[in-house]
């Protein structure tokens, strides 16, 4: 079975996601980029699971999807709150975490 | 009863004082009487236990260990809680317990300044634990722990309740002894590693013979142990802490120091150094003998130069312990018996002298010989007691001191096989000359303090003669000096069997 194609695709998707996370000015888009990265990881998991004929990869993938869904839920809620407070969703403007 | 004593007797003797010290410390300070009574009860109880235990002691087998308790203690280094009693430790154990009780009685109404009976009592009791432990310990680590345990209370006794120069004296005492102990511990460790990974004295005695340790190494190990004990004795030239410590220490401190603490060193030689390393002991014996003989004359000359009564008595200890060490260095049964007798006799006699010095100090607030004089006139009883102790100290036959001195001289004439006879006979003559010196400094002291008439500066002062609690504290000392002097069998029958076991290696 050809695994390289899956891996290359996943790598592409990951890089795209990473780029999006770093440069997007819209927090919602950043969240979406994160989803992209997560799914690239899922793709790798499934690809290796198929190659090694091992169910664990599938299980992990499903698990990750569930976590991702939860994460998006929480993330969107945070973004919403940030927007409500600041009238902006630009992550670059939020530096309260500096402490 | 015997079963109980076999299991718990010695342990009780060791730890009862420490326990009492704890109780004393938690007793409220509001009522001082209570504190004193608790302390006295503890010390007396310890004495009673030790007397009861000793009454079950089998004197026919005084050479063998009795009331043996051997429990594992620190497994990783194979060190055990191993205690037992034989003829060597018995007299010293009794002496230590008696001395503490009498010291408490003596101080009943006059505690050293700054007044704090609670602390003094607690320290004395802890000291007792340490001393008792040393005399029964059969394990080197156990021995070492007790040996060091005696340091701290004495350090505080001198450092807090001492004379004007107390801090210097206490630090000197503590550090000097610690310095010696460090080498001793090194010696113990060397024995542990070289002779079968054990700290048990009995096992070491057997192991060293078979372990094939080179004689050079044995000598070196002996040297380390020697240093530890020699400082404690103290032998010339390691004696300089003693006059300072004695001069500055409060009366009870001096008494305990002279009566028991100095004996830890000589006891260590007889109990540990010589039996475990007999060959090295033989190498070292002439050296020890020479130092002892020098100590006899040197201590006496030091005494003659003193202007302070207490310091003079302290210096006399150097000379007297010289006789003890001379006896030990001959490695003969005569010498060892003399040494053990000398230890008890010196404990009683010098202890007594320090008591007298303390009482004089309390009345005159000075011990300067030139300012005293006419003690016999102002306080005849005190003067006579002092005279009695003086006579005992110079080795008058019929009093205990003689049996520490004469047999030591006797033994030096015929040292153990293989030792240099000519050298030891020379030492014998030196020791015999030392008896005249002893008479010299003691009687000269007595003449200057007790004879003559009162100095003008004290005219019009009233001085109490010996007080009831002083009589109570002194009577056992005085009686002991006479009884042991007249009937030496009391000591010999206890120590001789044990000594014979030790000197068998040296051919008698």
């Amino acid at each position: 079975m050809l695994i390289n194609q899956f891996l290359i695709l996943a790598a592409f998707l990951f890089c795209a996601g990473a780029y999006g996370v770093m440069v997007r000015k819209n927090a919602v888009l950043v969240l979406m980029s994160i989803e992209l990265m997560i799914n690239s990881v899922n793709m790798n998991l499934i690809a290796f699971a198929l190659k090694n004929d091992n169910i664990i990869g599938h299980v992990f993938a499903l698990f990750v999807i569930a976590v991702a869904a939860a994460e998006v839920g929480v993330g969107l809620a945070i973004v919403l709150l940030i927007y409500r407070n600041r009238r902006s969703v630009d992550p670059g403007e939020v530096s309260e975490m500096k402490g | 009863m015997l079963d109980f004593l076999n299991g718990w007797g010695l342990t009780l003797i060791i730890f009862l004082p420490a326990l009492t010290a704890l109780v004393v410390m938690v007793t409220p300070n509001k009522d001082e009487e209570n504190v004193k009574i608790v302390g006295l009860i503890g010390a007396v109880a310890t004495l009673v236990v030790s007397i009861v235990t000793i009454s079950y002691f089998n004197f026919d087998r005084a050479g063998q260990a009795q009331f043996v308790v051997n429990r594992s203690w620190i497994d990783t280094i194979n060190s055990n809680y191993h205690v037992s009693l034989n003829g060597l430790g018995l007299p010293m154990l009794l002496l230590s317990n008696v001395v503490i009780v009498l010291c408490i009685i003596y101080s009943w109404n006059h505690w050293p300044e700054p007044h704090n009976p609670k602390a003094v009592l607690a320290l004395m009791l802890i000291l007792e634990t340490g001393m008792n432990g040393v005399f029964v310990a059969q394990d080197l680590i156990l021995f070492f722990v007790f040996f060091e345990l005696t340091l701290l209370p004495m350090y505080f006794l001198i450092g807090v309740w001492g004379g004007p120069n107390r801090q210097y004296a206490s630090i000197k005492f503590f550090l000097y002894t610690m310095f010696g102990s460090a080498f001793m511990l090194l010696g113990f460790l060397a024995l542990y590693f070289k002779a079968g990974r054990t700290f048990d004295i009995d096992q070491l005695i057997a192991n060293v013979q078979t372990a094939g340790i080179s004689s050079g190494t044995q000598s070196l190990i002996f040297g380390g142990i020697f240093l530890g004990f020699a400082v404690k004795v103290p032998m010339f030239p390691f004696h300089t802490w003693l006059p300072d410590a004695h001069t500055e220490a409060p009366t009870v401190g001096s008494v305990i120091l002279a009566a028991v603490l100095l004996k830890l060193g000589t006891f260590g030689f007889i109990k540990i150094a010589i039996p475990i390393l007999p060959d090295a002991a033989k190498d070292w014996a002439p050296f020890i003998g020479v130092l002892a003989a020098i100590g006899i004359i040197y201590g006496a000359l030091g005494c003659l130069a003193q202007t302070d009564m207490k310091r003079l008595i302290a210096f006399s200890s150097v000379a007297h312990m010289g006789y003890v060490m001379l006896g030990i260095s001959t490695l003969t049964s005569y010498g060892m018996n003399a040494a053990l007798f000398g230890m008890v006799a010196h404990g009683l006699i010098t202890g007594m002298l320090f008591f007298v010095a303390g009482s004089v100090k309390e009345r005159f607030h000075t011990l300067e010989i030139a300012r005293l004089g006419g003690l016999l006139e102002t306080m005849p009883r005190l003067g006579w007691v002092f005279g009695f102790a003086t006579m005992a100290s110079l080795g008058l036959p019929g009093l205990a001191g003689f049996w520490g001195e004469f047999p030591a001289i006797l033994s030096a004439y015929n040292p153990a096989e293989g030792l240099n006879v000519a050298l030891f006979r020379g030492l014998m003559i030196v020791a015999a000359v030392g008896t005249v010196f002893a008479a010299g400094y003691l009687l000269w002291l007595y003449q200057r303090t007790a004879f003559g008439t009162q100095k003008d500066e004290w005219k019009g002062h009233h001085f109490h003669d010996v007080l009831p609690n002083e009589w109570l504290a002194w009577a056992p000392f005085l009686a002991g000096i006479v009884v042991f002097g007249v009937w030496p069998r009391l000591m010999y029958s206890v120590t001789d069997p044990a000594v014979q076991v030790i000197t068998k290696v040296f051919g008698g």
Partner: protein
Amino acid sequence: MSVFSAFSAGGNFASEFGLSTGGLLAAGGETVAEHSSSAPWILAHAWVLPALMVAAFVATLFFGKRMKFLGAEFGIVSSVATMVLAIGGVIQWVRLAPGAHGEEVAKEEAMRAVGAGMRSFAAHFAGEEPIKLRDPIERSVSWFRNGSVDIGLGIHVDGFTVAMLFTVAFISLCVHVFSIEYLRGDKRFTHYFAALNLFSGAMLWMVQTSTTLGLLFGWELMGLCSFLLIGHWWEDKTNSDAALKAFFTTRTGDIGLLIGIVILFFAAGNTFDMAAINEKALNGGINHATLVVAAVALFFGVMGKSAQFPLHTWLPDAMAGPTPASSLIHAATMVVAGVYLFARLYGVFWQGFSITSGGMNFGSWIGAITIVSAAGLAFVQTDIKKVLAYSTVSQLGYMILGLSVGAWVGAIFHLVTHAFFKALLFQASGSIAHSGSHHSFEMERMGGLRKYMPITYRTFFVGYLALAGIPIFSGFWSKDEILNAADKNGFTLAFVAGSLGAFMTGCYMTRVMAKTFWGENRLHLFHDDHDAHGAHAAADDHGAAGHDTHAHDTHGHDAHAAAVAHDDHGDAHDAHAGPHESPALITGPLVALAVMATFVGFANWPFKDFLFLKRFWFEKNIANITFEETIAAAGKVHPFDWGVAIPSIILAVGGIAVGYWYNVVKQGDLGLVRRGGVFGLGHKVLKNKYYLDALWTDLIIGSIKGPIAKMTYWFNQNVIDAVIDTAGRSAAATGRGVYRYIDQGLVDGIVNGAGISASTGGGVLRKLQNGKVQAYAATFLAATGLIAFGLVLFL
């Protein structure tokens, strides 16, 4: 010999020694030697005598002050009891059946004498009934054990012991009685009696103990009592100085004694038993060199105790004590302890000094020098007690000389006779001081006392004749035996010295008589100025503090008797009263002693039996025959010889005549010695006691006490202690250095450095933490990338 069986029988205690402390305290049980199990009670229980006196000592010490007579009653009762027992002992000894050994020797000797006609023991007693050789009575208990060696505590009673017990008990009783009056009112009356009792106990013990160790006990305890009694009036520094001097000097001699005892202990095979030591020494069981060393060592002890030249200087100073004590201790008994030791261990000295060889040995040299030098000193004393003290030294020289030349019996006989007449002389001088010269012993204050003190005069006269060696009186018989032996055994020099001594003794004693009893009384010359009197007396060597306060009516009874005491005398004992006879408590003992001093010499009557006089009764019945046997076998026992006796009588009489001429006829014209020249020089040397005091006290003791001790202490403080202190200080200094440079500089530097670099690094890194999520993500990604790169690279 049966002597040893007693000792070994005493050693069987191992089994008896109890199972518990009970056994510890048990006396060890008494074992009685088999041959003495039926011994007469007093002889077998001779220890009761000293025990009685020691009991009196304890009773006096603890209860004396509460008693009616302040404790004197204890002493009197025990000394009477002791006296009775001692007399009983003598009787029992004399009536004791001869031992098996004794009969055997007698038979053997008789046969030899018949066969060869040799000068032996039997020849000495030729044609007489066999000598009664009695076995000594030995009893011993185990004192302590060292391994297999049992050290016994025992008694060894023989004729010598019995004679000593009698002598000591008799004089002790006299002194006790005398002291009641003499020390009445003294503020330490009770202590005085306690010391006297302890002394008697120690002496009675010393003469009967069977071991050298036991002897040392008695010896040193006597030394203690001597110290206490010399220093009885310790308020005065001269008295306590004299006491210390006596103690030190005898102790110095005791170095030798200790060493001698130690040597003999090992040489005789781990025993202190004197009979065993003698036996071994005489048998050749101990090699000669050892014996020589042991004898010389022991002799130093003898010299110290028996005041032999040059260790005699303490004895004249010891006169600072009360006179009765001087009489008992420093004249009659304690000072002969050395002689006793010599005589008791005669086997050792016999061999060690090679007495048979007839050449001058250490002992005879010392004895000869002592006789003459002390007699010389007696001439220049102005204090009657000092004359008597030097005379004692001189007479002790005779005893030592006698023993050293083989006159064993003669020496111990002289010991006994001297004890009586010298005790008499001392007590008579005490009587003079008490009633005749206002408590002074200065002869300048006496004179003409014959008229005032008839009893004292007569008794003193008896003592004078006995001491001078005039026939019939006791001193003659014993001195003659010594001189005879010295002459016959080839000790010519010793003989010359002894004869010279006899001349000098007669001479200086006549001087004493002339100054005290004859002529005119001079006491009134000192009545004019009593203050000066006080000062004068205080200047005496044994002068007194008492004078300062009560110059008028207490010129100190020997210094200190309180003023009150004199009212009690009842016989107008006032400063202005003239000399008068002493009361009965003083004259009684004088008379008793005078009787003894006259007649005790007949105990060894050297001629055929005559009335109640038995030929050589003392020698046959009292003297320990073991040594006599040895001496006789060596041909050193000699019969009485007029050839020696007559010249010695002539010399003694000549001495008296010269003394009379110079002191009475010429009235003691001192111009001869004061004029300078040889006599003046001699006088000066004698006045300064041969400068021996300067040597001992000032040079040797002074330098030890002063510079040497100070140097040692300096060494201690500035060298040894300095090393320790320097070690301590440098440790402290090192500590400070370590703290400052290493701890604070280096170690702490590292710690601080870590902090500083952390904060600096933090300052740089904090810039990364800008709170911007995307920046974080970028960093995170970069880091992950780096890690991934690393993993790829290295795995």
